[in-house]
């Protein structure tokens, strides 16, 4: 197992480099000069512009941070490869650069935003796990019943519905149409307390549900089909032949087997949610990392985009590793197979 984990971690490196290099190249081909955008409509003096570029390491500077000029008196742009190494070097020291627009360290901005994404993802994953697994179990156990039909129907609707549209409908329904009844509780604007924290978990319900809607539907479908498939296995008949009741057979023998692929799906989905769902966060004006990256792209605030993507890549890779480990934990064939490959 340990060797397996080390191997997986080593596999991270090329993936990480690949993703970040692509991001790095992309920002250089997207039109729009970020530094000009900082000033907005106002004109900026060439000196001020050069100073900002020097600050962000976009031009070559001397030891004092002064921009170096070539023989024509023009600033020398930092070669891309040098910029990339600077980024990696900063990353190793926990420094993701400074925002063009806000002149704050990227880490500070993202650390302030990320908890909202994490909490939203947590609520989302709980909704997905409970409703998805529960509904899937019910529709498998009570196959072809009214409940099965209801689950099948609602999952079809959820899968077909784009998240932003569902989000808007929920806002409209709970926030506008039922305003008096819900007392605005489900609706934005989000209220903050003095510490800048959300006052109430209630505000998480609608965005979290929107975030988790499609994957909850998939979870319940996977759960249903897995449970039905497992219930047809020979070992279920063996368990029945021992004298276990139908209920005991489901809980003791079928569930664990059926859950293996479901847990994998939910785990990977958790990684996706932690990447900040741009659509959901935008629709709900959610102050998370997805929304932040979305705004940063519009403003060509590349350090924030790079920093955000960096965090997302790392989080997704770590979550996927954890999913693999838990998969092995659930399925002895994989666990023992992996440790056997040691020798």
């Amino acid at each position, binding site marked *: 197992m340990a060797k397996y984990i080390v191997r997986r971690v080593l596999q991270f490196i090329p993936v990480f480099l690949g993703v970040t290099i692509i991001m790095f190249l992309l920002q250089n081909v997207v039109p729009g000069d970020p530094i000009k955008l900082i000033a907005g409509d106002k004109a900026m003096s060439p000196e001020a512009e050069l100073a900002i570029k020097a600050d962000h390491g976009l031009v070559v500077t001397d030891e004092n941070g002064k921009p170096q000029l070539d023989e024509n008196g023009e600033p020398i742009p930092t070669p891309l490869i040098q910029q990339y190494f600077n980024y990696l070097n900063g990353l190793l020291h926990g420094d993701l650069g400074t925002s063009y627009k806000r002149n704050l360290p990227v880490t500070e901005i993202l650390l302030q935003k990320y908890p909202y994404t994490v909490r939203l993802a947590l609520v989302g994953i709980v909704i997905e796990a409970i409703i998805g697994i529960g509904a899937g179990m019910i529709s498998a156990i009570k196959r072809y019943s009214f409940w099965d039909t209801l689950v099948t129907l609602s999952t079809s609707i959820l899968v077909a519905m784009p998240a932003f549209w569902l989000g808007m409908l929920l806002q409209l329904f709970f926030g506008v149409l039922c305003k008096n009844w819900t007392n605005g509780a489900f609706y934005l604007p989000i209220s903050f307390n003095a510490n800048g924290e959300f006052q109430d978990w209630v505000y998480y319900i609608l965005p979290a549900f929107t975030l988790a809607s499609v994957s909850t539907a998939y979870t319940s479908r996977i759960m249903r089909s897995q449970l039905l498939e497992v219930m047809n296995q*020979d*070992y279920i008949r*063996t368990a029945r*032949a021992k*004298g276990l009741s139908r209920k005991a057979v489901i*809980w003791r*023998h079928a569930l*664990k*087997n059926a859950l293996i692929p479901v847990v994998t799906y939910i785990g990977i989905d958790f990684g996706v949610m932690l990447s900040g769902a741009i659509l959901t966060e935008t629709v709900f004006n959610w102050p998370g990392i997805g929304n932040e990256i979305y705004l940063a792209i519009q403003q060509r605030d590349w350090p924030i985009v790079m920093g955000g993507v960096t965090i997302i890549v790392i989080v997704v890779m770590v979550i996927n590793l954890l999913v693999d480990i838990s998969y092995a934990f659930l399925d*002895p064939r994989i666990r023992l197979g992996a440790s056997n490959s040691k020798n």
Partner: protein
Amino acid sequence: MFGLGLKKRNKTDLRDTPIPEGHHLLEVNDLKMYFHTQDGVVKAVNGVSYTLDRGETLGVVGESGSGKSVTSLTIMGLIDMPPGKVEGGDVLYRGKSLINMSEAELESVRGNDIAMIFQDPMTSLNPVYTIGRQLSEGMRLHKGLSKKEALDRSVELLRMVGIPNAEQRVKEYPHEFSGGMRQRVMIAMALACEPDILIADEPTTALDVTIQAQIIELMQELQHKNGNAIIMITHDLGVVADIADKIMVMYAGSPVEFGSALEIFYEPMHPYTWGLNRSIPKQVQDEKKPLTPIKGNPPSLVDLPDGCPFSPRCPYATDLCRTQKPPTHVTKTGHYSKCHYSNDEQFVQANAPKTNRVKPGDIVPERGVDA
């Protein structure tokens, strides 16, 4: 939550009740199990009857699809209904109907009074639990053993079925066992509660010949010790030749011949049984073609032939066979056959295969030695 359903049921085991006067340990009376499918009604079991007493071994023989497994699964109450439906008949265990029993009562019979070894050892064990846990389950349920007691007994059982290093192996998972080992585990599992009746559904088909013999020997040994009855299902008449007291030959969902093992081997009355006899290697010596496969395929169970189900393949079939269901011809000893011509001694004498098997007790074989 996961301990659900492992409390010992504090009812007395059915096997401790005496068999009522005039009853057998197990009586199957004209049992019919039909599956209602989209393609029509599959008559998988169509009028099976036999009786079984303690210490006896019944061999059930027939081609693939003849309804051997479905018959025993019906007895165990393990057929999903729907699509299955008991269309008639009854199964009495110690005089008590298993068909009309409540699910809870059946649960205390299953694995306890009547246990079953399944056909496919590779898929019959749960891949995510240890062997020890799967062995323990039945004993904890029926005998009320603690986890520790059940595990100790599991080690004992594994040792009994000839698995070396049992203390270690109870902690292992099914995929760490070979096919033969898993079949031994299945046997240990079935024997865990010392059942009154052991149903073994082709317990050795997946195994190589040497292990086959060992496993059959093992089951006999335990039968000798515990006095339980065995139902041994196989498609190979040769396998049950030496161990069965009684044999039921099944064809297309119904028994075509039933009798003592001696009767089935030395005085078979049904042409299908003759065919099976001829297809046992080394069984027949005084005929020109020693091995004769039965030609053709069994009929569809949805659309059975009008007359005798064997008529499309029977070399002796007449118009009578093709139009009329054959009656059951029963001899004084209870040996029966479903063929229009079983009561015609000349026909039987002329066509039945001669065998050179030595009847137990015979010093000089009666026939066929010189061929």
